[in-house]
């Protein structure tokens, strides 16, 4: 039993959980709106997953192609998402992304520049024009650093290496959160009428992933347990190009910029196989021969895009099919070749991190030899269902922004749309939460000792048990199940198998025990994270089983076609008596003036 009166308590207007791009941007916005705000983060400030983003942030600034504007970006985003995106989120994102990039620049972010000194923009899959603001291939690092520096400049409170395990509610409204300091293991209670979840994704539930250790679906699970719904959870993005060798670094990302800057995919026969995988939906905008594809890099007006730059789901499926057909590379991937197409100087200047990554970890010189690449779990399109304008979930006072939120990317996210998503919706969530929190200060409810005690007891449960299993073995089994049975290609019987194996894992995880004490105990931390990973995995498997078609990041071997009927349906996961249930909701209808954008050509 923990005595609740001894627990550290703090009071804020807005509590932001997560310090990646979305969390930092939300905190800055809430602070600027006059709210008292705190950021809580699981790792040290500046280490969040955003730091790993390489390619850039998509924004129709028109610095390189003046023809570009928000309507083109909106259209690309919706088509990339197979029209399952919430149109209003896609619209706001496309409209506001340029302002968010300019604002970052104003705060000191470094960008690669055009000869005229404007922010340069690079090509990426699914984007009609060169649109990604970037700095080499370390855009995420610069983005998070700039936001971190801004937060330092504003003096925002940051609770580092602190993990939230429960949200408090009273009468259907958020009243605060419960967490623990990783270092001391001591508990901490935050009283706050609004909480912004910005906890990122779920990739650590998969065996081969580009995601870092923080990605255990914490925000997804917290929201679900608070009564919010998760939308589009069946859509998990496998990035087509992760490292496949050596085994120690399998899954680490190879940026899409390699293809944007001229790299092509080849199979073991040396063939540019992507020409064999151009879907009907993208035929009119994709080059069908090498000559046209190669001309496109210099003349986008008169040539169509190379098929290597189709949206990620298309490319990942094609690679999967080539490997399955026996035309893969020696280590089970395909070849990504930029060495034969660009000069060594160009490659080192444009892709310095990739050059070093392969040189140091795989002993491969990418300026001289092709890379071996294959799909890796990269991003979850699904997340907390939110109001597009405020990012508030169905739970009053609970907001979500960034990867933990759902709707924006539909069935598949375009590269470059994640960094701009963080900025656009992080800011909106911060503004809305600050307004809600400061509007009714008298309505604050204090958190009861009983609630605090219950949260503390739940967190300490793994210490109470003796002789149970070690959490690492359960995590490995979970990753294996999700990879094997709910991976890139899915079948009903396999997903049913996955669900029954997940039930067994739930039972095993309820019996976990951890050794040692509360001070910096990684086994204990994982035991608590596992709870979230299991919840999220159940959502993915159940939604994926329900959607009997293939679309975007969800490919069914037993239902290979994309069905029009499913094109207007979103699946929502909610918690029902401690089990996940899935319900169908009709996609909100797009206004006519936006619909017309899809009728050209």
């Amino acid at each position: 039993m923990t005595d609740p009166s001894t627990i550290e308590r703090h009071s804020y207007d807005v509590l932001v959980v997560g310090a990646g791009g979305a969390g930092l941007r939300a905190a800055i916005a809430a602070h600027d709106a006059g709210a008292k705000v705190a950021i809580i983060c699981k790792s040290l400030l500046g280490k969040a997953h955003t730091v790993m983003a390489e390619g850039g942030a998509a924004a129709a600034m028109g610095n390189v192609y003046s023809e570009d504007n928000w309507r083109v970006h909106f259209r690309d985003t919706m088509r990339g998402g197979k029209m399952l995106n919430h149109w209003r989120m896609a619209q706001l994102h496309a409209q506001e992304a340029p302002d968010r990039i300019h604002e970052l620049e104003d705060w000191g972010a470094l960008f690669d520049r055009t000869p005229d000194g404007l922010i340069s923009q690079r090509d990426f899959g699914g984007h009609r024009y060169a649109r990604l603001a970037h700095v080499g291939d370390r855009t995420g690092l610069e983005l998070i650093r700039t936001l971190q520096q801004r937060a330092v400049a504003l003096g925002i409170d940051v609770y580092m290496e602190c993990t939230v395990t429960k949200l408090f509610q009273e009468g259907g409204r958020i009243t605060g959160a419960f967490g623990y300091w990783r270092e001391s293991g001591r508990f901490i209670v935050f009283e706050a009428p609004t909480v912004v979840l910005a906890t990122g994704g779920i990739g650590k539930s998969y065996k081969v992933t580009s995601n870092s250790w923080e990605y255990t679906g914490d925000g997804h699970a917290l929201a679900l347990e608070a009564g919010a719904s998760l939308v589009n959870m069946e859509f998990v993005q496998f990035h087509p190009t992760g490292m496949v060798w050596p085994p120690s670094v399998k899954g680490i990302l190879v940026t899409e910029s390699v293809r944007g800057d001229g790299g092509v995919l080849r199979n073991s026969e040396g063939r540019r196989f992507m020409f064999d995988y151009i879907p009907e939906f993208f035929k009119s905008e994709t080059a069908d021969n090498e000559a046209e594809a190669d001309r496109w890099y210099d003349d986008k007006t008169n040539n169509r895009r190379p098929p290597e730059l189709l949206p990620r789901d298309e490319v990942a499926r094609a690679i999967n099919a080539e490997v399955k057909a026996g035309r893969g590379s020696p280590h089970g991937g395909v070849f990504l070749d930029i060495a034969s197409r660009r000069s060594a100087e160009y490659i080192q200047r444009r892709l310095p991190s990739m050059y070093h990554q392969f040189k140091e970890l795989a002993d491969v010189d990418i300026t001289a030899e092709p890379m071996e690449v294959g799909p890796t779990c990269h991003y979850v399109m699904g997340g907390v269902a939110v109001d597009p304008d405020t990012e508030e979930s169905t739970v009053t006072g609970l907001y979500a922004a960034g990867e933990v939120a759902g709707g924006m990317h539909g069935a598949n996210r375009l590269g470059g749309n994640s960094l701009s998503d963080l900025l656009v919706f992080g800011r909106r969530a911060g503004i809305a939460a600050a307004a809600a929190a400061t509007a009714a200060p008298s309505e604050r409810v204090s958190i009861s000792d009983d609630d605090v005690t219950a949260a503390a007891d739940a967190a300490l449960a793994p210490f109470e048990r003796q002789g149970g299993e070690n959490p690492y073995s359960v995590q490995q089994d979970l990753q294996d199940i999700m990879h094997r049975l709910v991976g890139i290609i899915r079948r009903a019987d396999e997903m049913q198998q996955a669900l029954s194996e997940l039930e067994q894992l739930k039972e095993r995880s309820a019996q976990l025990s951890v050794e040692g004490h509360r001070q910096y105990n990684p086994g204990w931390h994982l035991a608590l994270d596992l709870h979230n990973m299991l919840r999220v995995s159940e959502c993915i498997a159940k939604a994926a089983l329900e959607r009997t078609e293939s679309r975007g990041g969800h490919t069914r071997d037993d239902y290979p076609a994309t069905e029009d009927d499913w094109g207007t349906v979103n699946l929502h996961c909610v918690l029902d008596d401690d089990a996940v249930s899935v319900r169908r909701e009709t996609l909100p209808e797009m206004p006519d003036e936006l619909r017309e954008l899809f009728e050209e050509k």
Partner: protein
Amino acid sequence: MTLTTEAPGATPAEAPSAIPSFQVTMRLRRFNPESDTEPRWENHTLTMHGTDRVLDALHKIKWEIDGSLTFRRSCAHGICGSDAMRINGRNRLACKTLLKDLPLKKPITVEPIKGLAVQKDLVVDMEPFYAAYKSIMPFLITTGNDPSRERRQSPADRERFDDTTKCILCAACTTSCPVYWSDGQYFGPQAIVGAHRFIFDSRDEGAEQRLEILNDREGVWRCRTTFNCTDACPRGIEVTKAIQEVKQALLFRRV
């Protein structure tokens, strides 16, 4: 304590058949504040493969032998800067140090980075490091109106401070500095790198303020140019050169 662990059956898809395996002894500096009064050494002998990194060996120990082994890591490929540690006496990132590049005949020593208080095992208190980072005002300082769209910056001006923008705040440089070890007040190399990033940014107007901070008794003049920091930087930043450029700027008050 010496434990020997064999690799459990690797899955067929990942069977590193062509990769040579070898025995390696990891000699870890461990400290548990709840039970130890002093740090202690602990050896683990493992079977590892030619492509494995120090981080893989640490994970193997944590996942299969002792779940309480504590160290920081996030991205695991050298971008986030969480896993700086002292490996065979040199500051490196565990995720970028291949075992095969180390002398395997002798135990590989892994210790926490020096100069910051150890909290547990390989985890140190980063607070003084962050305090130094914050003290040089690591944000763009400008006067006048905000630009309506963006500030222009020529590719040449942008290139001028490219090197110091690569910093990942891993603390490898600061905790390799002998002056920092003996003088807890010294800002340390990272803070000066952080200041350099803004002092030489053509858009920034806060150079005077930053230079004044670094002109302090515990500022740049404490640097003894030992180049430890440059050797330690996993990003290849020429740290000592950056410090020299800041010294020059102070001497001539010209950026």
